[in-house]
C-alpha cells in the first residue's frame, strides 16, 4: 500500500522530471528541486493555512484579552488552558493549524528518501525493485543508471566537504540553518513567559533544525536538497505575506520588540 500510494508515484515523477531534463550529470539534483517545488505547490493550501494560523497566533499575542488571561491565570494552568481554548473557539483559531503542514511533511520526507534511494539503486536488488516500480510510459532503459552527481555531491550518499582534513557537513549545517530561520520567522512573538503555545513553538524552533540537521548528516544528500529547497520556498512564501517576524531571528530580539512593558 505504501509503495503503491507513495513510493511508486514519487519515484516515477522524479524519473519523469529527470528524463525530461535530459538525464545528464546534475539533472537528478535539479529533478529533486523541481519535485520539491511541485510538492510545495500541491501542499500550497496547507502551507497557506499554516501561514494564516501563525499570523492569527501572532496577532493574538498582542491582544489585550489574551494578555490579561495570561496574567490573571498565570498560576492556574488548567484555568488558563480553558480560557485559551475559549478564545481560540470564539475567534475561529486552530492552534494546531501551524503544526499540520510540518506533520504532513514526514510521510513526504520518508517517501522521498525511499524514492531517491530506489531511483539511484545502489545494489542489484534495489535496481530490481526499481524495475518493478517504473510505470510503462517511462523511458527507463535509457535513463538507468541515474547520474547521482549534483554539484559537488553524490546524491545517494551523505554529503561532506573536506576542509583542512576534516569532513565538514556543509549541507547539514545549511539544512539546520534554513529550518531554524523558517521556524523562527513563523514563530509567534511571545509576551508571556508562561505562554504554553509560544513555549511549544520555541521548542520546535530548536528541535526541528537539530532533527533535520541530523537527518541531513546521516542520510543521502538528495534528501538535504529537498529540505533546503523546501525551507527556502517556505521562507519566501512567508516573507511574501509581509508578516515575517525577522526580529525573532536574533535571540531575544522578538521579546524586546514586542514586550508590552516597552509599549
Amino acid at each position, binding site marked *: 500500500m505504501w509503495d503503491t500510494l507513495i513510493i511508486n508515484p514519487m519515484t516515477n515523477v522524479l524519473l519523469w522530471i529527470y528524463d525530461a531534463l535530459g538525464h545528464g550529470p546534475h539533472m537528478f539534483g535539479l529533478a529533486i528541486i523541481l519535485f520539491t517545488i511541485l510538492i510545495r505547490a500541491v501542499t500550497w493550501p496547507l502551507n497557506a493555512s499554516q501561514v494564516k494560523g501563525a499570523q492569527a497566533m501572532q496577532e493574538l499575542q498582542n491582544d489585550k484579552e489574551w494578555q490579561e488571561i495570561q496574567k490573571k491565570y498565570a498560576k492556574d494552568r488548567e484555568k488558563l488552558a480553558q480560557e485559551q481554548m475559549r478564545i481560540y473557539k470564539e475567534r475561529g483559531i486552530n492552534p494546531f493549524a501551524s503544526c499540520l503542514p510540518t506533520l504532513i511533511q514526514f510521510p513526504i520526507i520518508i517517501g522521498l528518501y525511499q524514492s531517491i534511494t530506489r531511483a539511484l539503486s545502489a545494489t*542489484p536488488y534495489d535496481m530490481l525493485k526499481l524495475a518493478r516500480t517504473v510505470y510503462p510510459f517511462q523511458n527507463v532503459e535509457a535513463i538507468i543508471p541515474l547520474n547521482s552527481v549534483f554539484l559537488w555531491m553524490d546524491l545517494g550518499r551523505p554529503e561532506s566537504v573536506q576542509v583542512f582534513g576534516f569532513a565538514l557537513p556543509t549541507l547539514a549545517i545549511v539544512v539546520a540553518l534554513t529550518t531554524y530561520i523558517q521556524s523562527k520567522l513563523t514563530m509567534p512573538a511571545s509576551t508571556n513567559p508562561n505562554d504554553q503555545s509560544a513555549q511549544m513553538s520555541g521548542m520546535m524552533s530548536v528541535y526541528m533544525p537539530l532533527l533535520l540537521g541530523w537527518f541531513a548528516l546521516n542520510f543521502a544528500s538528495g534528501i538535504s536538497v529537498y529540505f533546503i529547497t523546501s525551507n527556502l520556498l517556505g521562507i519566501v512564501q512567508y516573507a511574501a505575506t509581509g508578516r515575517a517576524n525577522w526580529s525573532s531571528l536574533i535571540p531575544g530580539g522578538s521579546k524586546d520588540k514586542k514586550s508590552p512593558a516597552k509599549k
Partner: protein
Amino acid sequence: MNKKRLILISFLALAALALSACSGAPVSNNWHGLAADSERAYLAAGSFVYAVDLKTGGEVWRYPAEADNKFSFYASPVLTSDGQLLAGSAGATHVFVSLDPATGRENWAEVFGKGAWLASPLELNQTIYAPNTDGFLYRLDLNGKQADEPIELGGALWSAPVSDGVFLYVASLNHYVHIIDPARGTVVHSVDVGGAIPSSPAPGGGGVYVGSFASTVEFVQPDGAHEVVAKTGNWVWGTPLVDGETLYYADLNGVIHSLDLDGGSQNWDGVQPDDAIIAGLLLHGDQLYAAAESGSLFALDRDGKIVWKKTVGGRVYTSPVAAADLILVAPYHADAALAAYDVEGKQVWTFTPAK
C-alpha cells in the same frame, strides 16, 4: 510544560526512528554471492562469508568470526590460481580481503576504492582485476598491493570481468562494454549496447555475448564491432550461456531462450517455466538449470522440456553453481541460505547459518 516537552521530544524521536528504519547502511542489502571448489561452497551472505562442506552441508568456517558493520559481502567470492579466496565488501569500509579457503584465515585485507565491491574480481596472469562501483577497475598483485594505476571506465561496475584469452571485457551499468588490453592496461574499445549491463558478458565465438536492460543480447568483437543477435521481451539480467553453437539466455519475463548461433534461429519457442529469471543459467551434464525469482529451481533438457522443478524457498536471484555433482542454489529471504540438489532434483542438504 514538562508533559508537552515530553510529547514533543517523543514525537521527534519517533520521526527520527521512522526515517532511520528506512535508512540503509552504506549499501543496504542484496542477494548472496556463491562460488565453489571440489570440497566447499563459498557463500557471501551479508555480514559473513561462509565456507560450507559439500558433503555434509555443515559450516566449515565463517569470516569474520563476529558480525561487523564494516563487512557486507554480496559478490561471489573468487578462488585464485595460488589458492586464495578473494571477497570484496560493500559495507561501511570497502575492504577487499584474501582468505585461506580451507580455514577462513585472513591472508591480507586492503581498503581501496571509493565505492562498494558488488562485482567479483578476475585473476588473470597473476593480476587481480577488481571492478568497483566507483567506475574504476583496480589492478592488484596476489599480495593485495595495487600493481598499477586503476583504469577509469565510468558507471558503476557490478559484474566480474571476463577474458577471451587476449582481451578483458568489463561491463558497466552505463551501457558500455569496455575492451581492455591487459598488457598495456588501456581501453581499446568501448561499445554502447543501449542499456545497463548488470552481469558479466559470456565469452564465445571470438568475442563476448552481452545481455542488457535494452532487452537484447549483443555479440561484441575484440575490434569493437557489435551486433544484436537476439531481442527479448524484457531485460536480460543474467549472464548468457554459450555452449558450442547454442546461446542460452533468459529474461525478466521468465522466458528461457535457446538460440542457434549458426543459423540465427531459436531452437525452441516460449519456454517460460515460472517467474522472472534474474540468475544466470547453468549447464551441467546434459541438463540446463534455471532458478526463478519465485524460489524455484528447474532442470531442462536440451530441447527445452522441463525435467523437474523444485521449490527452494525464498527468492532466487543468485546464479546456481555446480560442484561435486551437486547443484547449489542460494535463495534470498529464505530460511536456508544455501541448498544442494543432485542432478535428479533430490535435495541433498540445506545450510542455515547458526545465529
